[in-house]
């Protein structure tokens, strides 16, 4: 059967007024909509019988999601063509347009042309060309590609398929065109009466193969949030593609020593920031406390980082918040990846299970243990029973049973282990065994349901388990098993155009845990430590739970202004009971096309570290720590992909856990109090992020933080982690970028990262005391005196090369950290009696490489 020829042409873009109840923004079109699901109208029988051609021009209202909300005929053609065109127009689907970088509803002009079919030639005199168009390398079917052969043309459908009939036999030039891919040309030989099946591979013209396209993103309410896509993350120099470490390059995050994953956010302690995967809190985010994150970047769609002033949906943290959003597995084809670098190897596979379900599974393992084992054989200083190694395991199933439902099942597991024997410490006692082992897994089931355009709900239930097995010779040991159940439920309802209400519950339960710990006391502050490591032993079966109930409103009193007040109530039951109420307010005011003012004020609380609450090492009468967050800022789109975000912030810290030498009477006996909630401090500064968004040949950013972090009380010792003021870096500058250079070499890109930061403060040693019982010198510091290590400067370079074959892609990268081989001081180093001081320097020039294959 012959098919009428129709040509649908996108004529022009109109910045329209209100359409279908959605506001279309004024501004610069930064991404034009493209047809992803074409529609072929029915040729009216009447016109076909009369051999009449026609052209209908329509005006379409396209929603933010890319569906056609309304269609109107602006230039009719009659003869049934108008009705056919209108019917087909409603089946069209576009990729979302973007105005000023944000998905936006737009109006477009669209033309359907109906050419009267020529008299059908004898069947045996024509040929058919049909096939499928996929992307070279990824094999991803491409929709909306224009395929023309001679004077015939068609668009590929959702599955990338096309068919061109009634072609004259013989040689014909075939051209395939698509805005995101290089032009494809070939010549085919057609035989009369036969159909030729073909498969064309188009080469993508931009290199961001896995850039996350965030479709239908909810209007932004957050004031400090920065989102990084996986496409940006994987090629940033100096982080070896680690998703979470990239966050360290954003403003508001202090530089961590040695490239480790410590996250010190706006002057807080490292433990003040909480980590989430898909909104569910996880206990650990790094292997070995800071080496590399537990989720490979291949499964991460984006990272949301909030340095402060986050909304009431999350709590129990006075610092920041980091959420890894994993992507749903691809539903179109099988995708296999294997990746190996200096540290670990990864294998991952994903693919469709059914039309609306897909699954992904990945596993990763380190292999530095082989190198370390070899080094240990030639060393007298330690033996190796289990060389340091880590592995992690991920799986995700995503299922969309209906257009209004999304069900996801995911699993994450991580295992770190090392065991050294005969470790020489240089002290009187060596460690007969040094064992570090941490394992956790978490399985999450989530359900997102859209009741209507105005009402959404989400339920996530997670079950996990944490196991810790540490031993430090005869000094101490820890064996913990902690099962954790998490429940998050939230609902959102829009009440009119300018008001929305959301509420939810966020709970975590530990029904029963086993904590077996033997460790000496934490050395009291402001004293020499005791030489006898007399162990405190704890064998506890602990139940705990924490529940937060929150509600949040989103109100737009006038055009462009959004106010988001919220309230979160929290109850913690863990050794003791704590309750608190956190009111928070955020505001965003969009001025004109490209500028948004923002501000936030809120109260944040968190429980003290668990060890400080135990009666064995801490003070069970402690209560929660708190912080006031305040910020004002401006976001501005300077031009196209170049944006500016400037924030001023102030954090007031109070009720911080502070070590003390005070004595208290408890149960009739005088005992050391050890800790009080007597600490106060503040953190304030300005943060600038100048960012060139991904999507073109270059992406990168300049981040500058001007900040101070101060604690009002000075103690020496008595804590388990350095306080936020230990990373007080008044100036912190990061500039990074990656540029594609196809002119030099196809598939080649190069990147850099430059970092400068003020040195960390340290307390100089005033004198030293020889401890005759331990045969060591103990430093005596003056807590009120501060000096700084010299400034830090480092240049990292990275080069990536990708070879794209028909059905697979090979990539390789070479990275050089500290390319200038600068000896950056990370801390003061002293000789045995502290009479001489030098610097402990970080890693020297450090090359690494990786190779990756994808099918």
């Amino acid at each position, binding site marked *: 059967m012959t098919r009428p020829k129709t040509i649908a042409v996108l004529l022009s873009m109109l910045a329209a007024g209100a359409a279908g109840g959605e506001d279309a923004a004024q501004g610069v079109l930064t991404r034009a909509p493209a047809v992803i699901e074409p529609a072929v109208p029915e040729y009216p029988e009447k016109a076909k019988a009369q051999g009449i051609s026609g052209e209908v021009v329509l005006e379409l209202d396209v929603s933010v999601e890319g569906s056609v909300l309304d269609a109107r005929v602006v230039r009719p053609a009659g003869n049934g063509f108008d009705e056919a065109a209108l019917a087909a127009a409603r089946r069209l689907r576009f990729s979302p347009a973007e105005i000023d970088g944000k998905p936006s509803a737009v109006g477009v002009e669209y033309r359907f042309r109906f050419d009267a079919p020529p008299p059908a030639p004898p069947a045996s005199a024509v040929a058919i060309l049909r096939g499928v168009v996929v992307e070279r390398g990824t094999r991803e079917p491409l929709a909306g590609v224009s395929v023309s052969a001679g004077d015939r043309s068609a668009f590929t459908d959702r599955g990338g398929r096309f068919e061109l009939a009634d072609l004259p036999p013989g040689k014909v030039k075939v051209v395939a065109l698509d805005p995101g891919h290089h032009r494809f040309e070939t010549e085919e030989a057609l035989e009369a009466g036969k159909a030729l099946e073909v498969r064309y591979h188009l080469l993508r013209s931009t290199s961001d193969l896995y850039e996350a396209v965030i479709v239908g993103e909810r209007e932004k309410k957050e004031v400090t949030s920065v989102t990084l896509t996986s496409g940006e993350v994987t090629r940033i120099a100096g982080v070896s593609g680690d998703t979470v470490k990239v966050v360290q390059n954003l403003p508001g995050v202090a530089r961590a020593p040695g490239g480790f994953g410590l996250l010190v956010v706006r002057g807080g302690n490292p433990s003040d920031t909480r980590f989430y995967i898909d909104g569910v809190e996880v206990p650990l985010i790094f292997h070995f406390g800071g080496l590399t994150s537990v989720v490979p970047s291949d499964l991460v769609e984006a990272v949301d980082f909030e340095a402060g002033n986050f909304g009431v949906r999350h709590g129990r943290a006075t610092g920041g918040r980091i959420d890894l959003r994993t992507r749903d597995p691809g539903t179109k084809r099988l995708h296999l990846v294997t990746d190996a670098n200096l540290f670990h190897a990864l294998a991952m596979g994903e693919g469709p299970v059914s039309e609306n379900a897909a699954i992904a599974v990945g596993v990763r393992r380190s292999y530095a243990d082989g190198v370390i084992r070899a080094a240990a054989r030639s060393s007298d200083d330690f033996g190796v029973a289990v060389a340091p190694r880590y592995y992690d395991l991920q799986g995700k199933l995503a299922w969309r049973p209906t257009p209004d439902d999304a069900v996801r099942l995911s699993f994450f597991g991580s295992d770190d282990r090392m065991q050294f024997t005969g470790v020489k410490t240089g002290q009187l006692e060596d460690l007969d065994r040094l064992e570090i082992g941490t394992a956790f897994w978490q399985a999450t089931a989530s359900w997102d349901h859209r009741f209507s355009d105005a009402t959404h709900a989400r339920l996530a239930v997670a079950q996990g388990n944490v196991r810790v097995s540490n031993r430090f010779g005869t000094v101490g040991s820890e064996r913990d098993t902690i099962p954790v159940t998490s429940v998050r439920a939230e609902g959102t309802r829009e009440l009119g155009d300018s008001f929305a209400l959301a509420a939810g519950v966020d709970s975590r339960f530990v029904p029963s845990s086993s904590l077996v710990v033997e460790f000496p006391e934490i050395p009291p502050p402001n004293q020499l430590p005791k030489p006898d490591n007399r162990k405190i032993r704890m064998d506890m079966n602990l139940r705990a739970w924490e529940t937060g109930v929150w509600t949040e409103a989103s109100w737009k009193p006038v055009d462009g202004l959004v106010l988001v007040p919220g309230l979160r109530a929290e109850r913690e039951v863990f050794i003791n009971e704590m309750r608190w109420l956190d009111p928070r307010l955020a505001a965003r005011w969009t001025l004109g096309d490209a500028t948004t003012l923002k501000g936030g004020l809120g109260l944040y609380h968190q429980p003290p570290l668990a060890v400080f609450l135990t009666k064995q090492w801490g003070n069970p009468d402690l209560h929660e720590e708190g912080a006031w967050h305040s910020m004002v800022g401006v976001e501005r789109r300077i031009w196209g992909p170049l944006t500016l975000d400037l924030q001023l912030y102030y954090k007031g810290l109070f009720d911080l856990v502070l070590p003390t030498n005070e*004595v208290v009477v408890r149960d009739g006996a005088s005992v050391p109090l050890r800790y009080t909630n007597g600490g106060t401090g503040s953190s304030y500064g300005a943060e600038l992020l100048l960012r060139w968004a991904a999507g073109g040949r270059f992406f990168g950013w300049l981040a500058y933080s001007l900040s101070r972090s101060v604690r009002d009380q000075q103690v020496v010792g008595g804590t388990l*982690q350095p306080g936020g003021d230990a990373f007080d870096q008044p100036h912190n500058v990061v500039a990074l970028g990656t540029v594609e250079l196809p002119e030099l070499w196809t598939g080649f890109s190069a990147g850099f990262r430059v970092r400068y930061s003020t040195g960390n403060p340290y307390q100089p040693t005033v004198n030293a005391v020889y*401890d005759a019982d331990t045969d060591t010198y103990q430093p005596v510091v003056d807590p009120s005196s501060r000096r700084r290590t010299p400034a830090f400067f480092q240049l990292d370079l990275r080069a990536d090369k990708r070879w794209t074959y028909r059905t697979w892609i090979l990539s390789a990268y070479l990275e050089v950290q500290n390319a200038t081989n600068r000896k950056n001081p990370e801390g003061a180093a002293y000789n045995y009696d502290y009479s001489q001081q030098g610097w402990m320097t970080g890693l020297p020039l450090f090359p690494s490489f990786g190779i990756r294959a994808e099918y």
Partner: protein
Amino acid sequence: MNRASILPLALLALAACTPDFDPASRVEKLRVLAVQAEPPEIAPLPASGAPAAPDRAALTSFVLRADFATAPGRETTVLYLACVPTPGDPSPSPCVLLAGLRDPAGTIAEAARSSCAGPPPGGAAAIAFAGVEACRAPAAGAWRTCGAAITSGGLTLPSPELALPAGYGFDALPPGAPERILGVQAAVLAFALDATPDELAAGTGACPAEVLATRLAALWAQRDHVLTVKRVWIRGPAAPDARNVNPAIDGIAAGNVPLDPAAPASLPRASVALTPVSPAGADALHQPYTELDSTGAPIRSAREEWVYSWFGTAGELKDLHTRDGGVEAWDLAAAAGGPAVVAAVVRDLRGGVAWRWAEVTIAP
């Protein structure tokens, strides 16, 4: 339910580069290598019956100077202060507070004042003067380098001693208190100063301790000095084990030949294997004991393992510490010819300590 981790910083310490400082085993200036309390464990005198341990301990330091062999007459004076805790009082001892250790002169002055004023009503001073000794190159064969501090005018300054005050005891503690089993620790501060007893005793004052303290404080910042802390166990009435005694060492052997302290041996400029010379029956001196936790509950039974610290005024010693049966390597290849001293300090890791030293001549 957050978790803290010191692991990143520990890993950084492993991965980072540190300067190449001289090792602690090299003696190049005034050093205090050990402080001995004899006995290492004392106990309050009981109201009746035999005491579990004496109620006082004699204190002495092992002071070694780099010019030991070439300037044997040069003196170091060591002044002792003691802090005896009250059982059941968890307040920190002033002898270990960093505020006081930052200001040694102030600490000495406070101790002198309290010593001169006498004990407060109903108790002992928090920090008190505990004696003086003078250190010099000892006579051949003597293992002690410090002894009585005698001025040129014939005044013998009080010998260093930690004594429990009269009436001291654990009776006020409730029956289940851990201190009854674990005991408590007294802390001793030893201020070693490159000065003679004459220099410290010069001056006038009603109270000799105050004179000493004033002079020492004045010279402290100007002369070589070492401040040392030493703990002495005060045994609880329910302690499960026999009282601790100091370990023993009879000498040092080089290449299995004991070095005679009275006749310096000549050693080649090569690597020499050093071992401690243990007395007969040394194995039996490795006392059994019960490892206790913080509540006084037993964890396990164990036997002492002695650790040896090695020091020398020339050459390079491979390890700062060796253990029972271990051998130290002393590399004299790059050492200048002439006299040198090697020393070994043995610790039982329970507060007991002993030492020996030997003078040698390195071949030119």
